[in-house]
């Protein structure tokens, strides 16, 4: 199975990003503020060693991916079937970004509208994004999940999940009292 030229270009770009980040962090580590004790090595010694290695490796990666851009060089002996099982290809990248956006939105909404209401919305969206299309099932599961997690974490593990601000807090408290969480 051969890696495409586009993949190799992407890989070069990634190595370049890693190299730039490593150089930036190297500079930051050189400027850590600490009190030098005799000739002892400072708290930046370990990060500097790691970053030096990272700079060398990323630099080597850039060179290697540029030199080996001709087809076939990065080919490996794994069978297509094995590769498909181990690493299925991505065919819906937009679902991934939607899923990430929904997760970020969930975290923003949770302290405002509370765990119960935000989880209803988030579960519904995530099940839909995960290519499940039975609307009735989605609706039922979206309500069941927050109830189950409230029960599990608030009654068994004793974790205080966010209830949100008024007026949403009232809904959270009502649900909690209905399922016996005090």
């Amino acid at each position, binding site marked *: 199975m051969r890696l495409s030229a586009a993949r190799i270009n992407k890989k070069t770009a990634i190595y370049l990003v890693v190299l730039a980040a490593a150089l930036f962090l190297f500079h930051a580590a050189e400027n850590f503020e600490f009190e030098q004790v005799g000739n002892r090595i400072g708290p930046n010694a370990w990060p500097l060693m790691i970053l030096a290695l990272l700079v060398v490796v990323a630099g080597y990666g850039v060179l290697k991916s540029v030199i080996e851009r001709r087809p076939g060089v990065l080919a490996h002996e794994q069978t297509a079937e094995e590769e498909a*099982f181990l690493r299925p290809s991505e*065919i819906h990248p937009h679902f991934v970004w939607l899923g990430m956006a929904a997760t*970020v939105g969930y975290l923003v909404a949770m302290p405002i509208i509370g765990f119960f209401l935000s989880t209803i919305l988030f579960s519904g969206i995530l099940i839909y994004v995960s290519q499940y299309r039975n609307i009735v099932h989605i609706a039922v599961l979206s309500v069941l999940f927050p109830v189950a997690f409230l029960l599990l974490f608030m009654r068994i593990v004793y974790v205080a999940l966010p209830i949100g601000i008024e007026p949403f807090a009232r809904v959270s408290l009502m649900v909690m009292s209905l399922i016996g969480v005090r």
Partner: protein
Amino acid sequence: MEELHYLAGGLVEVFHPHNLLMLTAGLLIGMAVSIMPGLGLVMGVVLALPFTYNMAIEPSVILLTAIYFSGTYGGCFTAILYRIPGEPMDVPLLWDGYAMCKRGEAAKALGWALIAALFAGLVSSTVMVALAVPTSEMALKFSSQDYFAAIFFGLTTVVALAGKSLVDSLISLCVGMLVATVGVDGMYATERFSFGIPLLKDGIDLVVVLVGMYGLGEVFSRLGQDLTLHKDKSAESKATTQFPSLREIVALKTTFARSTIIGTGLGIIPGAGATITSFISYGIEKQYGQHGARLGTGLPEGVVAPQIGSTASVAAHMIPLLTLGIPGSAATAVILAAFLLHGVQPGPLLFTEPGSKLMVYTVFASMFASVIGMCLMGLFWIRVVVKVLMLPQGVLSVIVVLFCLVGAFAHRNNMSDVWLIVLFGILGYLFDKFRFPISPMVLGAVLGPVGENAFMRTMIATGNDWTIFFRQPICGTLMFGAIIALLFPFARNLMRR
């Protein structure tokens, strides 16, 4: 003899109701997660971690090790019956297992897998008990430079064995070690890489890295893939087990012995996870087995070798974890996190106090019980367990994400941890998308601080003399081993050309 006394005491502890409940739960969870593509035993161990916060150390570790053990076995059912490998380690199983199933020998293939898992689990657990005390006694003599060299050796083997590209593995490892340096340094109380962001000042919790990279990252990756499982409904009725005869087992004695040596031997080396040992066992069987050339056409050797390879590695991984405090795989890194969360540092000192020694032997005894328990479950409950395949992937994704986020919140009741998990989830997705191996990153985050501590102590004690690492017998040997491990991928590539 003293070890047997502690092992018997440990066995009694295992049969305490709470411990037994955790063992059973762990076995069931391990089976379920290894059957479902997209989950896997590491994610199972990660997701169970938050539930151990309020438990004692023994049931916590019993739960996690039971998930780990049965996670190497449960996947054989879907690989053999449906040609669906729940985990990458199950891929070699389906080549011969599914071929046997198509010939109408599914029950026999499952029987071989069961016998292989039972044999591998019991033998490797015995080896683990036999090696634990000598290894811990040797580890007690370790100086800080020896300890650093052992960690350095562990990190290099992780890199060498983790992926196809040494460059990608090294980058992954460096990222993990850098993540572990974020926050206030313990020796000088200096802020490192926090850039004035309050979220980063306290450092990045290991649980956040594990849950984000393995849990959320995997879900994000799965969202973009074709989630339809094409399974043969008629195969469900074949979910029975038929044991091979004693004569058939004896005929495969070389395969049993060879694969057990490979699984246990490689498992002790950090980095060789169950997937690697499974593939190597199958590869060696193909190369040196009596019927190697016919492997892939539905031979029992093709089921026995990878099953033994993966199951035997579990107990072997526990040796460096419990005796040196060095996790050899992603799952043992999570188990180490569970120890640390309970204020217990695994290492040779665990074997010096009677109380902690009994705790270690309870874990050992639970592993014997896990092996027998998972085989009994495989024999009697498998028809029920394979029903988890009916669960739509979308529903599973929500369950995993909620467990990741709420579980992380439960750790410190802190929304900052949850935000960090999402960040690491996105990083985990990008690692997967661009084919960077995740295990070096995670093990770098786990071993980095321990390595830094040993390195700093050595440098202070020797006046910055780094040649000490090469001048003394133990650390010199380990550093030599590390160099060999780093050169191994280059040698492998040269040999292939």
